């Protein structure tokens, strides 16, 4: 699966790695729900590092569409919360 880290580029992950990513993603939802800023930053860094370290980085001239888009490294919990509020998943 090809994933993109916004602002950084694309990586290819295998199924096991995607499953790993999925785990972090689930915890991320809880963290955003609990408004835990510190944990959010740590988890985001962990998630992006996981992709950077384990994935195969696509060459600059490889043209491919990504299946999954990851937030940029400097994304804040507030920014992400706004995405969810649009959907009404978090009631405020």
């Amino acid at each position, binding site marked *: 699966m090809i994933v993109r880290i*916004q602002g*950084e580029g694309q990586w290819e992950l295998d199924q096991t790695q995607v499953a790993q990513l*999925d785990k972090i993603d689930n915890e991320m939802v809880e963290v955003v729900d609990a408004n835990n800023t510190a944990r959010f930053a740590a988890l985001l860094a962990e998630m992006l590092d996981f992709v950077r370290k384990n994935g195969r980085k696509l060459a600059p001239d490889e*043209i491919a*569409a990504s299946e999954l*888009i990851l937030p940029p490294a400097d994304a804040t919990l507030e920014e992400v919360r706004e995405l969810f509020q649009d*959907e009404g998943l978090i009631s405020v």
Partner: protein
Amino acid sequence: MGLLSRISLIFKAKVNKVLDKAENPNETLDYSYERQLEQLQNFKRAIVEITTSKKRLELQSAQLKADIDRMETQARQALAAGREDLARVVLTRKATAQQQLDDLNTQINTLNDQQQKLADAEARLSAKIEAFRTQKEVIKAQYSAAQAQVRISEAVTGISEEMTDIGTAIERARNKTAAMQARAGAIDELVNTGVLADVTQVGGGNDVDRELARISASASVDEELARMKAELGAPQQHQTLPPPGPSSSQS
């Protein structure tokens, strides 16, 4: 829904908007390529713009640093003149300015990172557009209409995704720069109104300035008085000094 799925959906909606604007790519491979080049130029301009804004912030930071250095000198002057109270006022202002400076510098560092990432993103987009140029010739030459459609669609989507990404990154950098400039502007405002301490400019006219000027003026008056006294009462003065008188009269 997971966080990533949500983010992906929103991002892909943006990509689709970019795609919708494109003409039917099968008919217009060359046109699509031309548009990509145009878009690349737009991005380049936007990145230069952000770099310029950053440089302005850096100038402001240098100015603030110079102000802080001058405050340091002033505090020493005040202390040398035995005016601890005045030194304390200057140092308090210096601390406030230092805090602002640290804040400004942290933000400039963030912007530096972002600038580097934008430069990398621009390089990626350039490489992809170049690859697209080659691919479109291959597609035109080798594939049937149906096959070509799939290939073209893949290539155009891939490029549009890259463009959406760099566009979003530029937007974020712009917002960040604007916020920083607003804050830097607020610092200027504080300096201008004397709240933050433009204690440094000659004739700047705030309280500390006047006080230091008064101290320095009175010191120079004292010196001049001493010099004049010395001239008038030269013999007396010489008697108190090591013995030039007798030795000179002997020779």
